[in-house]
């Protein structure tokens, strides 16, 4: 019924992916992530045919977690490490944008091949999920700043969450379990801040994190 609304939201999320890929400013990256989180958080309402407190709880938790708490922490970390820009990433912005765009198209195509249940066939859930995961991986592999990688991880996990929405009615538990991934992210960020306090690792540049090697 409100599949169109849902698809709209997913489209927004996918747009935010591209934004995240293209932006060199860490702050805009964080903002993109937080908006995406909120969008994701809103989705369960649109999915659920009738009001169920459980689903509402999940949704609210998601919005609060993904959309507000984590971006807040990230922002704090950013300020603590006073970095603003992602300098010369391993995969340049334009290539990663192109990759992301191509990936998004491919995702739509791939979703057609996958055998989906009729009620999911129309929705952008699966393509969106795939696109976000791809974006996440691109950021994880292509960025130098730890913060950007964390954001990449967040987007990856958003993709997984999107996919999880397929199952929100039958097995809500799994979907809720996804929240734990946010905890992981929380640990990342805390790690960064803690370490920032220790001054062990300046400018959160992972290129300096290559002491341990063969």
């Amino acid at each position, binding site marked *: 019924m409100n599949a169109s609304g849902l698809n709209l939201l997913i489209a927004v999320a996918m747009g935010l992916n591209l934004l995240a890929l293209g932006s060199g400013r860490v702050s805009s990256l964080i903002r993109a992530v937080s908006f995406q989180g909120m969008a994701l958080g809103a989705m369960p309402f649109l999915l659920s045919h009738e009001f169920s407190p459980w689903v509402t709880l999940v949704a609210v938790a998601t919005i609060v977690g993904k959309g507000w708490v984590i971006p807040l922490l990230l922002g704090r970390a950013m300020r603590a490490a006073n970095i603003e820009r992602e300098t010369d990433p*391993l995969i340049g912005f334009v290539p990663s944008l192109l990759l992301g765009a191509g990936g998004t198209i491919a995702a739509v195509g791939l979703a057609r091949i996958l055998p989906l249940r009729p009620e999911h066939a129309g929705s952008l859930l699966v393509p969106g999920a795939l696109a976000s995961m791809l974006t996440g*991986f691109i950021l*994880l*592999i*292509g*960025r*130098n700043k730890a913060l950007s*990688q964390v954001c990449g991880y967040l987007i990856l996990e958003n993709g997984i969450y999107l996919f999880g929405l397929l199952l929100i009615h039958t097995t809500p538990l799994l979907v809720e379990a996804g929240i734990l991934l946010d905890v992981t992210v929380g640990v990342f960020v805390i790690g960064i801040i803690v370490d920032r306090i220790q001054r062990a690792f300046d400018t959160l540049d*992972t*290129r300096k*994190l*290559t*002491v*341990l*090697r*063969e």
Partner: protein
Amino acid sequence: MIGPLLLFALVALGLGALAGRRSPAVWVALTLAAGVALGAAGVAVGFGLQPDWDWRSGFPVGGQALHLRLDALSALFLILLAGVGLAGTAYSHTYLTLNDGIDPSAPARGRLWWNGLIFHLAVVLINSNGLHFLIGWELFTVCAYFLITLDRRRLAVRQAGWLYLAASHAGTIALFAFFTLLASATGSWDLGPLRERTDLAPLFWLALFGFGLKAGLFPLHVWLPSAHANAPSHVSALLSGVTLKLGIYGLLRFSGWLPVPASAGWVILGLGAVGALAGIVFALVQTDLKRLLAYCSVENIGVILIGLGGALVAAGEPAADWGRLALAGALLHVWTHGFAKALLFLGAGTVVHAAGTRDLGRMGGLWRALPFTAVAFLVGSASMSGLPPLAGLVGEWLVYLGLFDAVASHGPAGWAAGPAVIALALAGAVALATFTKANALVFLGAPRSSPSHALHEPDRWRSAPTFGLAGAVLLLGLAPAFVAPILARASEAWRPFDTGTAAVRVPLISLGRFQLILALVLVGVAFALWRRVHHLGVTRGPTWDCGYAQPSRRMQYTAGAMGGTVGGWFTWFLRPERSQRRPRGPLPDRAFILDRPRETVLEGVVTPVARQVLRVSTAVRRLQHGRLQSYILYIVIGLAALGLIVLVQGGRP
């Protein structure tokens, strides 16, 4: 009767290992007792005083019920183990505590691992369960490693030990595969004659690699020289005298119990012939006494393998009894070489301790200080060169008889036997040259360097075993007929299912008579000449040497020169490392020429291969470069690869 003896021996060895740290006296007593018990058990079964011993118990080790057996073949090797073990034990009692700058903790460790080695060698010999065989095999390898590296503060020793361990493990892996395949083919770990399972024949190649490597089969001998040279001498004696022979034991056992490929005999014969010749040529050019002896072991293993190969070839032919003759020769050679080589290594231990070096080029004239050792060493060398009236000849003689019959019978086997005979002959002659060199450089002439501290005959503990072994060599030479029964029984036990062939007759009476007469005449004439000379009186003077007033000791022939001529014929193969400086000008100053014998197979084959592998490993290790981004990329790649596999495989139903 047998069971209790063996049990006693093993327990005594165990207790001895425990006692070794605290009280050497207890250790030596227990270990000697164990050796005697092992020998007794071996003699009882080997000479047929007792029936073959086969003992099963429900008591499981590693999930497998114990199954021990002692037949004539095992007994033969058990007796060898007992003999050399006794000698080595006695020798090491004082040898270990000689202060040659060895690690202070060495003696205690030496006793512990020594008992462990003998224990597990015995276990392997009396075992009839694949799993337990493998356990014993691996453990004696480990014990031997710790014995070789007793003086582990020296780099050379550690390197030798490492090479030994690595090579042995390669062999062990092959045996892993061998025994596991056997077990999965037969459905049980139990070992025994399996004539009818012709599908098992290919397994022989695995066994050949695994056991051959341990035996020092020619191209696989790379670990052998350095290990024998760097180990303490009583250890070298046991390694060369017994553990090499265990490789032979394994080959005998499983070529006897399992069916073998048709080509097996030919391959072994060929490898043996090549090994005999190559080994002894390498020995001839060595400049390190113990390396020389070690390479000589490679030759004798070759001789033994010629016998075994002959037996296998003959087994493929109708009514070819010559095979059993060759086999009997090989078995006897296992003994003669074992005892003689142990004798030589013990002698070398004394010599090295006295001269303070292993370098032949710095010895000489030691007969004055060590007359008895010199005699014992001479006996060992003569036997090694197969000279009458000593033991070495007897085994080779039997092998010769077998091969001659093969050639005379005009069968296809002649094509293998003929070349083998000639290889044996050449090897024999080179062996003579080798031992002439060894004796001359060590004992004769004038000392080439200022002699070291301990220029005196060793104490009783060390001289007694040397002479004991010399006695054994002499006895085997003069009365070989006495060992004919065990040889016959052993070569029947080799293939228990071949009841078709006539019982093996080992014609040793005539040769024994001949050797005895010869010995008597030798002694008589030598005595007569001695009397004559001393009746006429002897004047001592400097070496005349065509009128050189006072030849200096540095004018004597050196280790390099003594091997030079024959070595020169094989330069294409030995590839010695030559460094020289030609004399220049009308008044030439110092000039020299130096040939370092090289480990051709090791340096020419093994090392390059290892280098390639290491190159690959270095390339792979670059992947762990510490960049997190790529680590995540690896995950994605792994994902993609697995997905691809599933996609490809999923396509087909």
